[in-house]
């Protein structure tokens, strides 16, 4: 067993804005079941018995999941013919086998997903996910890991070779684009951080730069 600690300002990360929404028993029970959380992965201080304490990893994970599940104004429409902002939660639920909290290290990866036949499939969320991310950045990480959990890795690990490869980085950026374009229940600053993160991914995580960047609306709106 590893022991760890962490802190970041829950006002700056947006957790104080989201926790009144995620701290709702029907939502807690829904995600617990749908993402296959297990008590043994989230107790010992991670927050199993304090699911609304934003100084602990579990509440921060719930906030990220709330952002993933309810950022579309028509959140109930989860059809795969809709924009990704609508179906991202469904996709994550259908592909992530189980969601576990772990320490990792603050300088290490945000999350790790193990996938494949004949082995235990899981997604582990780690300290930087809980304490270096804003709420919407956590939602982006979850859709990214969900893409891995669908058995799709990076083809130039840790990068994707191109936009056309259709990998986790593309899913990540697409979700943010639609979050900027459609989400009405968040703050301007939350969207600013998300846009900057998406453009950073476009600059850093594709072997061939896709050649475009998101604007404040996510994408250009035709005249």
């Amino acid at each position, binding site marked *: *067993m590893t022991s760890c*600690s962490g*802190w*970041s*300002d829950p*006002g*700056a990360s947006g957790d*104080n804005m989201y926790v009144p929404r995620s*701290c*709702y*028993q*029907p*939502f*807690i*029970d*829904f995600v*617990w*079941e749908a993402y*296959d959380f*297990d*008590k*043994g*992965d*989230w107790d*010992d201080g*991670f*927050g*199993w*018995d304090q*699911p609304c304490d934003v100084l602990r*990893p579990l509440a921060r994970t719930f906030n990220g999941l709330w952002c993933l599940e309810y950022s579309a104004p028509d959140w109930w429409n989860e059809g*795969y013919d809709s924009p*990704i902002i609508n179906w991202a939660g469904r996709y994550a*639920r259908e592909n992530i086998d189980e969601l*576990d909290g*772990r*320490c990792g290290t603050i300088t*290490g*990866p945000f999350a790790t997903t193990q996938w494949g*036949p004949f082995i235990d499939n899981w997604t582990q969320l780690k300290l*930087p996910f809980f304490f270096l*991310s*804003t709420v919407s950045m956590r939602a982006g990480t979850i859709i*990214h890991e969900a893409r891995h959990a669908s058995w799709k890795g990076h083809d130039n690990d*840790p990068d994707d070779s191109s936009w056309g490869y*259709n990998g*986790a980085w593309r*899913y990540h*950026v697409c979700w943010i684009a*639609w979050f900027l374009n459609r989400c009405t229940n968040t703050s301007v*600053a939350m969207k*600013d951080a998300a846009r900057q993160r998406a453009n950073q991914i476009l600059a*850093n995580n594709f072997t061939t730069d*896709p*050649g*475009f*960047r998101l*604007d404040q609306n*996510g*994408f250009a709106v035709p005249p």
Partner: protein
Amino acid sequence: MFRIGDSFGPASPPDRRGDRGEWVMRQAVGLLHGNEEEYRQVLDVIRQDLDAALAATERWLGDTEQDPMGRWSLIHVLSDVGHPGAVRLLHAQAARRLPTRRKEPGVCEQAADVEELVNVMAIEALGALARAGAGEAADALFDVLENQDRRSLRGPALAELLAINPQYRERASALLGDEDRDLLDLRVTREDDVRLTPEERDPGRPPPRKVVDKPRPGSRGPHNRPPTAGAD
């Protein structure tokens, strides 16, 4: 499958000096995702004693061991304050050299990415000040374009300069190396770029677990407790 989990304890927040500048910046950061009217009122208070707020911000930003999104938020607040007195501080943040990103298999997102966002926010804050008429902010952006060692920071600096004044293109172009030429031709994302439909599920994979009804959003209830199904 059974595994032994880790244990966690919340760390203590940093002990900050409780002067007026520190206090007011902390209020602003706390309201960044909160009530917009109250946030605007705090910005007015900051403008009334900008030097105190800048001094506190500079101390806070100097503590790079702590909370990068907290530091990002401070810079966002300064951007919203919109006073050219912040240019020196913003320039220092935008030009700051960062450790090399880890490029190794399995490390997708990492702390270095968030640290870089602090610089990006400073670059965008300089751009906002320059668009409002602060010429020294544009000069700072040219300096970042010329001297920042990261392409992922030179790109935002260039984008800001081109947005401030399209006539900056020629001067900016002269500062770019061959490896950055394509940054001049970046376009805004189009809707069809970000339309996506998942492919069929790999037939070798087990089917997804049973569908759980998604509840209507609600708000904090009086009896929130550990997950009802949480014992397994």
